[in-house]
């Protein structure tokens, strides 16, 4: 078939990672490069001591060849995540995080953990955040009905995670709802 079985229900995490890596990020280059036209736009010029903005995939590529340092996004540090974790555990709603924070933080921790301050602490904070949010997702299933479910501040990886179950449940509720008018 044209599309593998595993790809039919939803996007896969590596695909989400690919999409997230199109986002821009700041780097401190260690090599110089003229301004260059790429398919997604023109980037550069890279002049070593000055910061430049490039897509994440390019930053990761250069980083893995030791040709740049990555400047961590403003939300990827201990204070910010600590604050969000505090809100996450004290308030009922989902706290406000970048839509693709899970993908971006994963690739940055994998490739550029030496450019982050205290990566181990960040890792454990992200893990706690994930667990707190996951618990809320499961609670949210109780409020599911056949018509609509608002999920403010849910991020892309979480949506993908709950998709199969939530879609199936809501679909079933829709079918049950449709029965009464047709039955005598």
């Amino acid at each position, binding site marked *: *078939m044209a*599309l593998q079985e595993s*790809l039919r229900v939803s996007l896969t995490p590596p*695909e989400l990672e690919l999409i997230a890596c*199109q986002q821009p990020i700041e780097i401190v280059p260690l090599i110089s490069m003229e301004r*260059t*036209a790429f398919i*997604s736009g023109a980037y550069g010029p890279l002049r070593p001591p000055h910061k430049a903005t490039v897509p994440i995939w390019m930053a990761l590529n250069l980083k893995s060849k030791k040709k740049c340092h990555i400047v961590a996004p403003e939300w990827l540090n201990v204070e910010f995540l600590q604050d969000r974790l505090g809100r996450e555990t004290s308030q009922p709603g989902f706290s406000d995080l970048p839509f693709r924070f899970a993908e971006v933080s994963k690739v940055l921790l994998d490739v550029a953990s030496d450019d982050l301050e205290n990566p181990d602490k960040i890792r454990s904070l992200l893990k706690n955040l994930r667990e707190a949010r996951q618990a809320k997702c499961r609670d949210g299933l109780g409020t599911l009905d056949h018509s609509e*479910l*608002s999920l403010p501040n849910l991020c892309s990886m979480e949506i993908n995670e709950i998709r199969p179950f939530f879609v199936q449940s809501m679909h079933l509720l829709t079918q049950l709802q449709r029965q009464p008018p047709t039955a005598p």
Partner: protein
Amino acid sequence: MDWDEEYDLLAAGGGAAESSFIERVRNALPDDDDLPIPDAPRRPAPIPLAQPTEDETPLQQLIRHWINERNCPDILPAQEELLVTILDHIRRQSQTVQLLRDDASTSEDEHVRIMLAQTEMERVKFIVRSYIRTRQYKIDKYARFIRTDAEVQRRLTAGERDHASRYANILDRHLYKCVLQSLPPEQAHLDDSPGFVPSMITQPDKTRPVFVHALQDCPPIRLPDGTALEMQKGHISLVPYYVVEQLVARGEVELV
């Protein structure tokens, strides 16, 4: 070097292939030798088409359409022009890369650029392939429905329509030869729609819920339970697809 030409092209207005002819004419600077035509009817400035995608690059558009297509139960309108733009760009980029690779005087710094350009081309090709395969999968699945429905045919490219009808015919012939020819004629139909069971022709199920993300403030939509929902920009919701079908078509929301 071609790099610089490409860059000039991009700097000159988003690349020649990115805007349509009409757009380029509209954005053209007034020429010195263009005398104002006195009897031209005075009209207000052309109303820009409702394009929430204005500041999206072609690649960002393609990614949005790709994700929409993956998450949508129905077949969305084909994005032929956009694909042509992207494929042209890949072709130009690969020619440039080839030229530089063949050039022995290419410096070490150039190699980094080449490597990055090649990496990007592979990423874009992956997206293009996945987008086309997703459509292909749905077309195969609904081939027999597509043959009978003019509305969905309009959303396909000529090539896709052709494929759908050939695929449906081959499938019918196969089923007939294997099984149906040995059944009594009244049981040998492939398009019965008896009560209480689903029709034999598989149709896209528009009641399947989807996750939508509002790209802008949207006009109110009617939910299945009768209430109205007005989505603000950034709102994320799980709703049946048919509720947001129009919003997806207009590009006001994306599926996530």
